[in-house]
Every structure is written in structure tokens, then in C-alpha cells.
């Protein structure tokens, strides 16, 4: 290693630092430390002249390392790194000492503040000695995208990406596109026709020159990393291999099977139907009991399988609105019938939904509340009763135990993850939460990305949601993918971890430590391998490695240890 030649620059920040820290004395003293070639102080280091000062010193004094003592690196680390780059040296041969936010602005004793500044700068000098030049790296992105699932979210993502002229492979396990939306007649809250909007979408997808559709297919294997995945697709026994850059997982949901809830009598009482079954009746215009009569009393029961720890604790989000839609439709098709809606909380939260709730109640739909955990029971009516079934319930808003007559009971079945969600998760390398839904990278600010770069999760496989929210997510994923493929490459983290293969003993402690599945295991060499395209540089693996084989670049053991030495060197 060439001899270190360090330049130190202490900023006044006007009076912000200078008022509390004797910057001149600090600079002078620091100048005496070994390897320090230049030590200067200046009013505004971040200003253009301040940066120019660094650049010219680097050139003049052949500096190969720079320390700036000024404000928080969160403010200006990038600024100074750029200055180093301009001067022709690697931007990572730089360290900042924060003597504003952490010293001058928070302390009141000038001597102490000055002393603290010195030790912070000494630490920075000690650290920068061990800095390595690091290079920005990027990986090329294959412009093709794999979309798993041909439901509404998958279609939306595929169209958005293909619409820009990029290749999409759309995989659907069933024989048709459209998913659950294709089975629905009308959509709450505006009661528009699902088919009228979905059919053209499907047609567009089918006729799109950039979309290759694989029906009755599944992906059997995915390997690689962001920008460079290889997918094996099995289509009717034949295997195809595709190279892709990104993956959108839109595998959707399945409906809860109400047969497991004994009290609702599904499967035993002929006129207890699921939401999907009722949907079919509406579609063909025949809302009739099994004996072909028009029902006089229709009861809709919410939260079937949802909001109940025995089945699923979560709320399925879409059933309330679907129930209101059914109530409306039932009223329309059966003008004379009594319609009862047995709910827990009416979750009419989306645009236009509260209005639908109001509108529905205006149509003489009687809403009856049962409390969470105090479910109604459906039973056959006594012989001679003028209805087919009666529902026993405790009505929470009146406090009464009541029975509700019913000739048809519609169970608003909740949604749940597919049985094979685990396989999909394993295939694409995403994690799952307790409910078998996939986990997003960040539930708030990154709801479609996953911890695996290049793999996006959208729609109902993440959590139950309605069509607009699914579509938004699909397009959000598309945006991410479009941005990266239009760049052609994606920049990867510079300060990643790296494995010293001469030391690594293959204990595999690090592998599960990584939240990004960036570490793999090379069986042949018996060492761990860091996929730097996936690594985010948190350094946790470096700390977990028992042999010291993993190095967290820019936060290496020796850098931090010598920083500590520097910090303490002025203490008695």
C-alpha cells in the first residue's frame, strides 16, 4: 500500500462551528499527526471555494486521503465525495467528522467541544488510513419480465410493461386469463360490468406482440439475481427456459371454504351458498332456491372465515363491499323479498363505498350486527314455517336474541393464500408472514418490492385487496421494472459484504442472518458466497461471521477498531 497522505479540513460553518470549537487550534494540532500532509480550516467547506480548496490540495500535495470535519455526513458526505472524484481520487478514500450536529450545536463548553472535535477528527484520520478505494458497480438488466399469475393484477402489470415495448412472459396455471375478476358480474361500488372492462384487457394481452402467454403452465425453477434470472417454465409437460430481468408475482388468492364452519350449514343446507355461487346465479339471472322458487327472505352473512382467530384473524377487506353489491343486486332481482345483511363492522372505506352503503340501506336492506366471535347459526326451519331456514343470532345493536327467516343464505367467504404459496415463495425467494401472504420489503414505503431485488409482489398474494388497489400495485411494480430496464442496468450497493474464501470454513452461520438472501453456499468450495447484487451492506453478516471471513466493505473491523483507538487516543 502506498504511503498515506492525508488532508484535513476543518469547517467553520460560519460561526456555527467556530463559535463553539476553536477550529484553528484543532486544525493546527491535527496537522501534527502522522501521515497528515495538509491541515486547513475554512469558513464554508461545502461551498464551491471550499471544495476547490480540497481539489487543488489533492493535486498539489498528492493527497490520497481526505478528512473533512464539518456537519453531519448525512448532509454533505456526497458533496465531498464528489469533490474527491473531481480531483481524480476514489471517493471512498474520504471520511467526515461531524463536529456541528454532534459537537458545536449540542455542547456549551468551548474547551470540551474543542477537545471532543479533536478526538473525533483523530478517529476519522485513524479510520481513513484503512479506507479502500471502492468502485460503483452495476449489473445489466435483461429487459424481459416474468409475470406469475394471469389475474387482474398480472394482466395490469403485463400490459403496463409490454405497453412500453418490453417483453413479458405471462404464466397462468389455469386455462384462462382473468382470474377471479372474470367470474364476477358487477363491481362494487359503481356496479360497472366486470366483463365489459376485463374482456378488452384480456384481448389486448392476448393480441399483444410483446406478451407471451403460458396457460396451464407453471414455473418450476428460478435462479439468478436481479436483472439476470433464469426461469424454467413447464407448459403441459414441456419445459421452456427463459431469461428475464425481473419477476412480478401476482398469484392472487383463493376463497375460503365455508364447509369447515359447521354453524353455517354449508354443504348440508341446500340453500346456503357462497359468494361465488351467488355471483353465478346473478350472472345467469336466476336467483332461485334449489327447488326453483324465488326466495322470499335472503340473508347475507359477512366475515365468513375472516376476523376470527379460529379461521383467519385478518379482515378480507373486499367482502363487505361485495355483500352490499349482492344486497343491491338481490333487491333489484327480487323486488319483494326481505333482505337481511348480517355484518360485524361495515367496512365501506374506499372511494364511493360509504355512498353505496347508504344507497343500499335505502333499499330496505335490514342490517343486523353480530359481534366478532359471537357468530350467527343457520338452521333448518321447523316444518310449517313459512321460510326454509332460520338464523339465530344475537343482534348487537338491539341487544336482542333474534331469529332471521331465510330462504337463501349467502356466505361472504373471506380470502386466503393459495395452498402452494410456500412453493411460490421458495421459488422466487420471498418471505411469508403467518397468514401465508408474502412479505413486502417495507409495508409502508415499499409495498410491492421484496427483499429480493428484482422480485415484486402485487395484488392479493400480498394481502387481500380490491381491484383498484391490486391494479395500483401492479402498476407500481411495473414502474419499478420499467425504470430499471429503461436504464439497462441497475446500480448495486458499493459497500457490500465480501467473503474471504481463504478463511471461510463453510459453517453457514451467515446465510440465514442475511435479510436479503444475498448469501449463498458454494458446496464445492465449501464457502459462503455473497451475491453483491442483492447485498445492501448492513454488515450484520460480518458481525455474525465467527471466523472473520466476511468483510463489510467500508465498515471493516480494522476501520472501526482503529477509529475507536483514535477516539480514545486523546483521553488520559
Amino acid at each position, binding site marked *: 500500500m502506498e504511503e498515506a497522505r492525508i488532508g484535513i479540513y476543518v469547517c467553520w*460553518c*460560519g*460561526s*456555527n462551528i467556530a463559535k463553539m470549537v476553536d477550529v484553528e487550534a484543532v486544525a493546527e494540532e491535527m496537522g501534527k499527526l502522522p501521515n497528515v500532509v495538509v491541515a486547513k480550516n475554512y469558513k464554508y467547506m*461545502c*461551498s464551491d471555494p471550499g471544495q476547490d480548496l480540497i481539489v487543488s490540495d489533492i493535486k498539489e500535495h498528492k493527497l490520497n486521503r481526505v478528512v473533512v470535519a464539518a456537519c453531519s455526513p448525512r*448532509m454533505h458526505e456526497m458533496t465531498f465525495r464528489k469533490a474527491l472524484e473531481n480531483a481524480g481520487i476514489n471517493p471512498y478514500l474520504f471520511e467526515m467528522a461531524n463536529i456541528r450536529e454532534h459537537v458545536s450545536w449540542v455542547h456549551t463548553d468551548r474547551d470540551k467541544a474543542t477537545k471532543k472535535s479533536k478526538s473525533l477528527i483523530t478517529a476519522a484520520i485513524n479510520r481513513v488510513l484503512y479506507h479502500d478505494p471502492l468502485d460503483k458497480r452495476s449489473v445489466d438488466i435483461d429487459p424481459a419480465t416474468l409475470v406469475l399469475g394471469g389475474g387482474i393484477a398480472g394482466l395490469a402489470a403485463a400490459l*403496463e410493461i409490454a*405497453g*412500453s*415495448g418490453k417483453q413479458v412472459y405471462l404464466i397462468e396455471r389455469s386455462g384462462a386469463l382473468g382470474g377471479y375478476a372474470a367470474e364476477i*358480474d*358487477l363491481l362494487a361500488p*359503481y*356496479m*360497472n*360490468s*366486470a366483463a*365489459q*372492462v376485463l374482456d*378488452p384487457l384480456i384481448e389486448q394481452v392476448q393480441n399483444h406482440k410483446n406478451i407471451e402467454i403460458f396457460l396451464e403452465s407453471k414455473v418450476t425453477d428460478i435462479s439468478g439475481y436481479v436483472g439476470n434470472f433464469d426461469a424454467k417454465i413447464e407448459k403441459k409437460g414441456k419445459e421452456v427456459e427463459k431469461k428475464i430481468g425481473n419477476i412480478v408475482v401476482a398469484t392472487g388468492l383463493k376463497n375460503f371454504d365455508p364447509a369447515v364452519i359447521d354453524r353455517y350449514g354449508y354443504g348440508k343446507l341446500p340453500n346456503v351458498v357462497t359468494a361465488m355461487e351467488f355471483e353465478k346465479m346473478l*350472472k*345467469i*339471472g336466476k336467483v332461485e332456491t334449489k327447488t326453483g322458487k324465488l326466495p322470499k327472505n335472503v340473508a347475507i352473512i359477512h366475515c365468513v372465515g375472516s*376476523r376470527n382467530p379460529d379461521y383467519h384473524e*385478518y*379482515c378480507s*377487506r373486499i367482502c363487505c363491499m361485495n355483500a352490499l353489491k349482492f344486497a*343491491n*343486486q338481490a333487491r*333489484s*332481482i327480487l*323486488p319483494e323479498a326481505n333482505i337481511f345483511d348480517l355484518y360485524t*363492522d*361495515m*367496512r*365501506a372505506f*374506499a*372511494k364511493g363505498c360509504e355512498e353505496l352503503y347508504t344507497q343500499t340501506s335505502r333499499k330496505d336492506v335490514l342490517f343486523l350486527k353480530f*359481534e366478532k366471535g359471537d357468530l350467527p347459526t343457520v338452521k333448518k326451519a321447523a316444518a310449517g314455517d313459512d321460510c326454509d331456514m332460520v338464523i339465530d343470532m344475537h343482534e*348487537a345493536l338491539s*341487544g336482542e336474541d333474534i331469529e332471521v327467516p331465510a330462504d337463501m343464505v349467502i356466505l361472504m367467504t373471506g380470502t386466503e393464500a393459495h395452498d402452494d404459496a410456500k412453493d411460490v415463495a421458495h421459488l422466487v425467494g420471498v418471505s411469508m408472514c403467518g397468514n401465508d*401472504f408474502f412479505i413486502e420489503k*417495507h*409495508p*409502508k414505503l415499499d*409495498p*410491492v418490492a421484496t427483499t429480493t431485488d428484482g422480485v415484486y409482489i402485487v395484488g392479493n398474494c400480498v394481502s387481500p385487496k380490491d*381491484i383498484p*388497489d391490486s*391494479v*395500483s400495485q401492479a*402498476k*407500481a411494480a*411495473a*414502474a419499478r421494472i*420499467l*425504470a*430499471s430496464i*429503461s436504464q439497462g442496468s441497475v446500480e448495486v450497493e458499493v459497500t457490500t459484504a465480501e467473503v474471504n474464501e481463504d478463511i471461510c470454513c463453510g459453517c453457514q452461520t451467515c446465510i440465514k442472518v442475511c435479510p436479503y438472501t444475498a448469501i449463498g453456499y458454494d458446496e464445492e468450495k465449501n464457502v459462503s458466497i455473497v451475491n453483491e447484487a442483492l447485498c445492501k451492506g448492513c454488515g450484520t453478516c460480518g458481525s455474525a461471521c465467527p471466523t472473520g471471513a466476511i468483510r463489510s466493505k467500508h465498515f471493516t473491523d480494522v476501520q472501526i477498531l482503529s477509529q475507536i483507538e483514535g477516539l480514545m487516543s486523546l483521553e488520559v
Partner: protein
Amino acid sequence: MEQKGLTGIYFCDDFNGKSDAIDTAELMAYAENNPDAAVTWSPSRLPITDPEAIAAKIKEFKLERMVIAGDMPGMVKPVFARAMAAAGNDPGDIILAGFREYGAVSGADTDRAKGVIACALKGVTFGMAAVPEETDVNQDTVIIGAGIAGIQAALEIADSGRKVYLIEKTGTIGGHMAMFDKTFPTLDCAACILTPKMVEIGQHPNIELMSYCEVSGVSGKPGNFKVKILKKARRVNLSTCIGCGNCAEKCPGRAPSEFDAGISTRRAIYIPFPQAVPNKYLIDADSCLYVKNGKCGVCVKNCPVENCINLDEKDETVEVTAGNIIVATGFQVFDAKKVERFGYGQHANVLTSLEFERVVNAAGPTAGEIYLRTLDKKGNYVFPKVGTAPESVALIHCVGSRDENYHKYCSRVCCMYSLKLAHLIKEKLPSAKVSEYYIDMRAFGKGYEEFYERIKSEGVNIIQGRTAKVEGNNGKLLLRSEDMIEDKLIEEEVDMVILAVGLEPRQDAAEIAKMLGISQTEEGWFREADSKFDPVNTFSGGITIAGVCQGPKDIPDTVAQGSAAAARALQSQIKGKIRGNIKDIPLQKIEARAKELSTLEEAKK
């Protein structure tokens, strides 16, 4: 058409009588004159309540297909389905011609409504027929509003290497999210997750952040907009200000802090909050003594940088060109003063939820301590630096929402943020009694129901029953509610009441809508092109909407929309072409295209 059989059309709504509505009579006349319609009905000619009668009519006219036209024709579709089935037809042959669905909501949209009818009669969807022409697209994007939706959209597009003008009305980006303490249901701190994104915006080479700026005019056409931007006089030079704060120390001007939702004061020269981006000062003309009286200039004297503060700076207007515009202007909270009986503005400790967010925020005026608000010497409500903690707090849901007297819609986030606030109170004041009064608990999202259960188990008293009134009572607040589940009347005395105020469109939403030529819903939210499949597009080409300006939503949904809007822009930019305005397509063109499509369809069969 012969082989397809006869088509009947039914107008289920009659708009006549409503001002500014589409003229139903004109539409019916259009249908009657359309050769594709065998018969035209309306409720006055054929009542909608009797499926049997309709079936008989269908048989009588030998109809094989029905078009139902109206504002929301889906509402009556099932009755036709039954009638069609009864008449021996396939209920699948019912076509909805929904005017609202295609944005035909007022008399001005009559032509579009006719187009919808023409397409329906031809058996094709309007969306397929009404395809605007494509034009070249400018690669730059203008984003209006730099809340989390705007930030997200900007980063998505800028990361693809394209230029973004991010225009923010206030002095900093971050929007409402920056004001929050924690976010539900994960309870992560808003600043921790938002500030890195804000910093990224500030440092992104492809983003031109224009804070303290407003869009003052838009011209041009999709793909090539000219956007006039008013740069409000900041009076502090953005490039030389070092953010030291010396100027503010001695500034005599005071105004309520916008960032603290008005519960603290700031100087006339100020930085909206310590982590603002850009982290530079600005002068608020309304509270600056120099601007008002022409003398002061204390800030200039204290500024260590030469010529950084220019008190005489004037507003200026610049113009940028862009191919796409993303509107992410967000919302404002409901003015709780409107509900007099909750006593907001009359009692010191009736707070809005937004105010309380600032109280409970570690970076807020009380540094996160929950204290009771008191009166200062001048008679203003202030939060003391050290004060008494409330022993009991009540949260009231649905303030201004779900109420015919104010806003009919549900604001979507209040239930959850109220639960969150209840949790934060319990966390900071474990012995405090916390009650929540709600109508329906809308815990619908991922992890929300679980969160609700958790808050219940933390000892928060959650009561189903809307609070009717809050009255002052010897320094305490007495509120009255019916606990509908426990069947009792609750007259609770508490120290503090937090009103879960709803979200409403910004005051200037109409102005922006007009400027951009996009439409609004009755409530004032921006209207999307398709409520289901195109939630961010508008009927105006090149203009997308994202976030709460389109309707209330929580952070993840807003972020998703921000990205989705970016996707629309990116798609056109990558392709190099963008679709024009749907509203500009002449009726004849739609009719012709519908005919063409239906012929194609026939040919396929």
C-alpha cells in the same frame, strides 16, 4: 346486425330536473334515431320493478340483446338479467352503457354519453372504441405536490434517468407524512422511513426540486405540456443558505407553525422543520415585519453569508415543458370547528388528530410528552414545555366523515390512526384511561385487524357509539355517548379529547382541476378514468393522479399509486408515444370505430 338479433335500450335514469346534468331526452332521441336500437324504453314507459313485465316486453319485441343506459346502470342489471332469462334469452347479452363510468357526468359530456350509447348498441366497449391518437412525448415529467405520493413517483421516474420537476407549494417536501409520529400498523416512525427518501430527492441528479412554488398555468397537449410555475419569493438564496439558523434566532416575526399543525409558533424566517428538504430557510411574507412595515432586517444582519437574504425578492414565473404531469396534491384535514358540539376551538384540550400527532411526536413542541394545553398570558392556547399529563383521553372517530351534514364519504384512515394514537397514549401514559368512540371499526388492511385486537388488549376502552357532544365541565371535558353494545349511556369526564378529523380535498383542488382539465367527483376528489382498472389515469392524456387527491387512502396505498402514476409516465416515455385526450375524440369517430370493431368481431366468429 341482423344475425345478432334485435337490441333494445333502456334508460334507467332520468337526469332531467338536475341542473347541469346530461339531457336524458336528448340521449333518448339519439338512441331512437340510432338504427341499432330496435326499441327505446325508460321507467315512464316500462317500470323497472316488475321483471315479469319486462320479460313480456322483451318477448313482444323479439329482443335478443338489451342495453341498459344510465348513470349507474349496473344497479338495475339484475332485474334485466332475470327478465332476459325469463324471456328465454342469455342474460350475458346485457350491455351496460354507464355514463359515469366513462366520465360523462354533466351536460358538457353529452357527446361522450352518446358515444357510450353508440358503442353499447354495437356491442363493443367504449374504452376499445374511444382510443385517442398517439403523439410524441417529451421525456420530462412535472409532478405537482411532494408528499409521499409525489416523492415516490419522482424517485421512480428519476431512477430511470429521466428529468423530473417536483413542484411543492410549501417550503419543504414530505407532506403530511412528515408530520406523523408513527405509522400504523407497524408503528415504525414516520421520520425514520421518510427522511431518507426526502434526502434522496434532495440529492437526486435527475430531480429538480422546486419548493415554495406553485403551478400557475398549463397549456399544450398531452406529450408536450407547457407548465407555468410561480416561484414564490423565498427571500433566502437557496444555493448559499447554509441552514445555520442564525437569522431565525433574532427574528421578531411570529406565526403559527404549519408543520406543527398550528400548535406552536415559528419565526417569520424559518425552516419548516429540522429535517426539511431543502434544509434552507425561507421568509413568510405574512409574518415578516420588513415585508409588512418596510423595516426590520434583523435576519440580514445576523446572516453570516453575504447576500444570502434578499428581503426585496419578488415572485417570478418560469416555464418548463413536460410530456407527463402527475398530480399528487394530497388533502387537507376537515375543519373541526364546523362541528360546534365537539367544542373544538372552545376548549383548550379538544384537539384534532393532526395536532395530536405533533404533540405525541418526539420532535414536536412538547418533545413527545403528552401534556394538557393551557392558556398563556395573552390568552392563546399553548403547550407548556413541562406540564401535566392527561389522566384520561377520549378519541372520537368520524369527525366530518360519514356524515350527511359534512362529508358523506368515509375517510378511510381515521379508524386506524385513532387506534395508533390510542396506542401511543397508552405507551407514554400507561395509567391513562383511553377511550375510543367509533361507528364501524374499519381495520381492513394488512395487519390492521391484528393491530385492532392488539390495541384492545392494551386496555384501550373501545366503544361503539358516536359521541354526540363534548362540553366543558370545571376544566374537564364531559362527553356523552351511547355504548350500543353494552347498552348504556356513557357520560365520561376526560382531560383531553382528540377528534379524528377526516380528509377532504384541498381548497384549491377545483382550481387545479380546471387548470389541468381534469374532472372532480361531487366531493371534490379528482376523478380517475376507470375506478377499477385505471385508478391513476384521467380522461386527459398525459395527466395522472396519485394519492389522496384521488380519494382518501393510507400510506401504502398512496405509495403504490405514486409508483403506478410513474409507471404510466414511464411507459409513454420508453415507448416515445403518448395517448391524447379521450375527451377530444369526436363522436363521429367513436361511432365509426365502434362499427369497425363490431364488424371485426363478426368476422372473427
